[in-house]
């Protein structure tokens, strides 16, 4: 496995979808919306309610917002991966790519990186904004800095990368069965299923503290490794050329 070969493919694909508003819109829009929109809302609440009682419910409310970064990690890469794999399949450019001296693993890694790197960077950038602005808005009311904290570290450096890998792998699996990028994205939206459980758990009062988040991350590690085995088998030269529809 030559990383340089995979990275060449990733850079090429990023160069292509950079000009697609369908991919770039959400990739820039969602982190900006969460990173600026939510702090503005919090700022409004703080200003209109004064400081009384804020310390008890505000941190919980804000943690619910940070869950949006995980949702971003599940949804943003599917648009890219759907383009990079199904898009190439539709344009028939996978066959020429496969006839270069590149291994299946290098191509798969390249396509994965093309979706993974921009997603994670965009979410990290959005979260930096989010944390800075939330601190600025709440510091006076709470009397301490809410961010950075352990939960956010686990979310950004464990959950976000893992969930986006999980979403990309699902997309690879779906790619072999669908004939256009849009339906690939629709199928891949089952990435939401485990997230809904997490969301519901949070809503019914199950606190998602650092320890719980780490358990969830460990669960995703298992899921990602299992899916990797299957997607590796799907993304096989012979399969792509003779079995993919």
């Amino acid at each position: 496995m030559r990383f340089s070969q995979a990275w060449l493919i990733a850079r090429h694909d990023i160069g292509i979808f950079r000009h697609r508003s369908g991919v770039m819109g959400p990739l820039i829009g969602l982190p900006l919306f969460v990173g600026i929109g939510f702090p503005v809302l919090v700022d409004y609440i703080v200003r209109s309610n004064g400081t009384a009682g804020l310390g008890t419910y505000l941190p919980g409310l804000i943690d619910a917002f940070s869950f949006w970064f995980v949702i971003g990690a599940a949804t943003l890469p599917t648009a890219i991966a759907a383009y990079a794999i199904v898009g190439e399949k539709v344009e028939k450019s996978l066959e020429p790519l496969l006839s270069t001296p590149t291994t299946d693993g290098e191509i798969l890694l390249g396509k994965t990186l093309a979706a993974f790197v921009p997603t994670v960077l965009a979410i990290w950038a959005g979260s930096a904004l989010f944390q800075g602005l939330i601190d600025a808005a709440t510091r006076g009311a709470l009397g301490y800095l809410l961010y950075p904290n352990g939960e956010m570290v686990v979310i950004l450096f464990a959950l976000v990368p893992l969930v986006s890998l999980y979403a990309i792998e699902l997309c690879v699996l779906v790619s072999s069965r669908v004939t256009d990028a849009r339906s690939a994205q629709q199928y891949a939206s089952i990435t939401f299923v485990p997230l809904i459980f997490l969301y519901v758990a949070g809503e019914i009062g199950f606190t998602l503290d650092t320890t719980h988040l780490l358990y969830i991350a460990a669960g995703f590690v298992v899921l990602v490794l299992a899916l990797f085995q299957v997607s590796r088998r799907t993304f096989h030269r012979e399969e792509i050329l003779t079995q993919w529809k």
Partner: protein
Amino acid sequence: MIHAEGLTKRFGSLTAVDQITLDVGDGEVFGFLGPNGAGKTTTVRMLAALISRTSGRAEVAGYELGSEADELKIRERIGVLPDNVGLYDSTSAYQNLEYFGRLHRMDPTALRTNIERLLGMMDLWEKKDLPVSTFSKGMKQKVAIARALVHDPVLLFLDEPTANLDPEAAKMVREVILELKKENRTIFLNTHNLDEAQRICDRVGILRTRLLAVGPVETLRSGFARKRTAVRLERTSEALVAAVKQRLRTDGVEVSGDRLLVDVDDPARENPEIAEAVVAAGGRILELSQVSPSLEEVYLKLVHEETALP
């Protein structure tokens, strides 16, 4: 350059390519002819190490099909034009070629030189920065051929390079292939176009799941279809044909316009007899000539005989 023995590919119960044994020499332009579904694309994909073979073996560009490491070496040394061009439409011709050159790990200077030479040869240098989506089908085909050549492969597979092109674009592409032939590259050309094969290829193979015949076009023409002598006459008539048949003691005489077509095995020996018979039957000969069968006749004969088999 290519040496295949008993190469076979089955998809489930369907045998797509059956026991092909074939050699293609260095610098040779080999035409692979066959009707739709004959297995041409499947054969090229096997030889290009894109799909596995069910049985048999093959050596391509010095490496044996089968191991992952050798197949990587094979793909380093060959260029493939698939049956679908598969270019990146939103990027330019230059960028399309550059990407493939880099996937082949070419040195940047050599890559630039090659791209310039190839796009120049294809008459596309002026348009190198336009997105490929603005190109006509023929132009796209030429970009795809240039892409297959960008890393200077020793062996080039072209899968129906002129299919779906209008006559002018097809001619353009054929000229490019002839140009490549002058550069002494080994070319494996899949085509349904017999005329094209006849004009470009040193040897052809006729495929219909099995390889039915291989050889230079001339040899196939003289070896596989009937030879005939054409006698152009001032006037033909039923009575004349009957008389000629009787004298030559054969039924192989046919009228076509003002000509009699007589089946022959050995023209040198039989033509004088034919002339005598026609004259004796009262015919006045204007011209006597040999009709060699076209490649098309050979092809149709082989492909149809195959159909007739159980």
